[in-house]
């Protein structure tokens, strides 16, 4: 039945008038809510808590953008991998924040623009500890469970072809079904991005029975996506995300942001938080946007720790997602 949604989204491209495309920022502010596409269920990234509220890493960037444009209400659209791109193309959502890999063909041919990279990830493989497998090179002939409609399918095929090995894929439409089939023993291997594997492992019957193999078989830069051609909206998303990253670099958190706003004498911090200059007004936002964003979601490090970090069921290392001055790849252009 989900394919009906894809069909509808495709039909949206058919009928939607082309005028509605420009000015997403104005549309969002006029509507009073932001339409954000996320996962159906991927713990750490986007899942429902016991009160029915969405939370997670991807969701936090929806909330950050919502705070920046001053529309605290956010309408979430849970999407499968297959539905996500048509949903964005057709205007059903304003922002796609759903572990979408930045690739050239998507950027060039699909009417999409990638903004920042919020997570440097890579595709990995998970097996049962009891199988005794230590390396992906031992997987010749394995049965592999995976989700359809993502780069995952291509990467795994490439990897096995490159290493002269064969495998049998069992492909599902939704991540929970992949997990159920792997957990029941239908497959030897579960593959997706490592962050996703960690998320899925936390939901298994016995998370400790499974181990993620050391090999990363691809680069998966993940981040929010917007429609091509609306540069203002892309800039708003881009600089909102960068704001959370820069805040970590400058030691600004959700708790101390107001104090720092009042007391800081660092000219860059003052510009960044909108105390001096017109950086945020130039983007089409108001002066209070940066403080609102940081009060809502905190800085990048806080977002990471809250959803993916060591104290969550996912137990992900910062790794390449550490700040540039600590050996990572998070590197923000200057606020000037």
């Amino acid at each position: 039945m989900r394919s009906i949604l894809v069909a509808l989204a495709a039909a949206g491209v058919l009928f939607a008038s082309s005028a509605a495309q420009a000015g997403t920022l104005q549309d969002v502010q006029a509507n009073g809510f932001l339409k954000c596409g996320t996962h159906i269920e991927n713990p750490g990234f986007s899942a429902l808590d016991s009160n029915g509220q969405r939370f997670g890493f991807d969701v936090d960037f929806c909330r950050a953008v919502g705070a920046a444009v001053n529309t605290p209400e956010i309408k979430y659209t849970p999407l499968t991998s297959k539905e996500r791109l048509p949903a964005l193309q057709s205007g059903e959502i304003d922002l796609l924040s759903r572990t979408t890999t930045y690739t050239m063909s998507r950027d060039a041919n699909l009417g999409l623009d990638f903004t920042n990279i919020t997570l440097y990830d890579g595709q990995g493989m998970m097996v049962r500890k009891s199988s005794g497998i230590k390396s992906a090179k031992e997987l010749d002939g394995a049965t592999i469970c995976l989700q359809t409609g993502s780069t995952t399918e291509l990467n795994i095929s490439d990897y096995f072809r490159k290493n002269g090995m064969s495998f049998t894929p069992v492909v599902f439409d939704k991540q929970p079904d992949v997990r159920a089939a792997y957990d029941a023993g239908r497959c030897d291997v579960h593959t997706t991005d490592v962050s996703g594997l960690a998320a899925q492992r936390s939901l298994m019957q016995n998370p400790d029975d499974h181990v993620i193999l050391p090999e990363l078989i691809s680069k998966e830069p993940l981040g929010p996506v917007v429609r091509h051609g609306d540069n203002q909206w892309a800039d708003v998303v881009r600089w909102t995300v960068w704001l959370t990253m820069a805040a970590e670099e400058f030691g600004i958190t959700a708790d101390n942001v107001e104090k720092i706003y009042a007391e800081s004498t660092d000219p860059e911090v003052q510009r960044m938080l909108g105390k001096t200059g017109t950086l945020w007004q130039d983007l089409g936002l108001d002066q209070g946007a940066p403080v609102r964003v940081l009060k809502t979601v905190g800085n990048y490090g806080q977002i990471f720790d809250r959803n993916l970090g060591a104290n969550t069921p996912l137990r992900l290392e910062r790794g390449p997602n550490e700040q540039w001055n600590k050996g990572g790849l998070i590197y923000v252009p200057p606020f000037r």
Partner: protein
Amino acid sequence: MTEHSAPPRVPFWRSPTGRAWAFQAVMLGSFLWLAVSMYRNTLENLKTRGIGSGFGFLHSEAGFRIGEATGIPLPQGGFLYFLISLAVGLFLSRILARHLKARNEAPLDTGWFGLCLLLSIGLPAATLYIFRDSVEIAHYTESSSYIMALATGLANTLKVAVIGCVASTFLGLFIALGRLSPNWLLSRLCRWYVELNRNLPVLMQLFFWYFVVFQELPGVKQSIDLGGWIILNKRGLFLPGLVPQQGAWLFVAALITALCGCWLVLRRAKRMRDETGEPGKRLVPCLLLMLGLPSLAWLAGGTPFLLDFPVLKGFNYSGGMGLTPEFTALVVGLTVYVSAFNAEIIRSGIEAVSRGQREAARALAMNERQVMRIVILPQAMRVIVPPMTSEYLAIAKNSSLAVAIGYPEFVSVGGTILNQSGQAVEIVGIWMGVYLCISLCISFAMNMYNARIALVER
């Protein structure tokens, strides 16, 4: 006052026919306008949004793997000659039969019939032998094109649809007969079967078969093993398989030819019995065809098949013939679900035949089986066939639910391509076109059958 003046000419907007035509023209015009503007609007929107369009992407390399790659038969050069010789053979034997009839000679005479058989079967068979490689079975790999991937998905869909239609019909027939049985327990059980399956959503049933039944089987290492012939575990059902050798194609062709020949012989025998009262020869020619042709093919082409047993290798059993849990769950789920509807259709068809028919047949000393086979079922078919058509359509369409349980059918493969190429409009268009074609084919075949069995009113 015997003369009538000619009726006054009615202006066309007041005459019913004129108005009808005008309305039709307006409707057609606005429909065309809608279609054209929709098409142009789509292209325009795709262009302004920077989304690539067109079907060119179908030729690029797919790059992903499909778990169950059914082989696609691709006709080669020699296939054309086979078709031509088949047409020529049928045409010549037809002319011969006409000619004999015109000369008032019995075309059923054994010698002439043999000649006709030789022409219509022997000729194509000979061509097939000369062009042995006229059909190549192509297997999808990662480096095949998107078209090949779609064809593989379609083959998987058709496989499920065909098996599902046949199985659900027979299962439905048994359930219907069970419900009509005078045995209290049997008829109650069948009734519960129908009520249960009709009232549970089909997707839920598929999940039940896949996640509850098939995933609860033992793992690979603890497989249920019946002497190496039948092996059952979570990964599927493994049976010894036939590995086609060089002469397999020829052997299968000979077998099919022999079957066709037998059918012709039986038809002729029936006609002879109807026309002359003498039972025509059946056993000897049929045996000759069925044994002779395949053994000739065996001699000419060498051993057609080798038996291959599944063996545990690495992660799983390999070799032999494996039925995956996805395929099995889908076929079983759809069959069980649709068979409940079919049972009701068949039951109502049987009950629609008037009691008098059954009583009359009994009075002619027919036994219960004969009554059912010769009197009741043929009449019931007229009631059964039309609603059955829509059940067959339902199977073909519901097979797309397989996306939920990991069977790589047409919609699932299409979805993968959609995501990789991003060509949503094209893929959705292909989906709609192909399902429309499948549905039209099923209705066409069923309508033809319906026309044949329909009551001819004179």
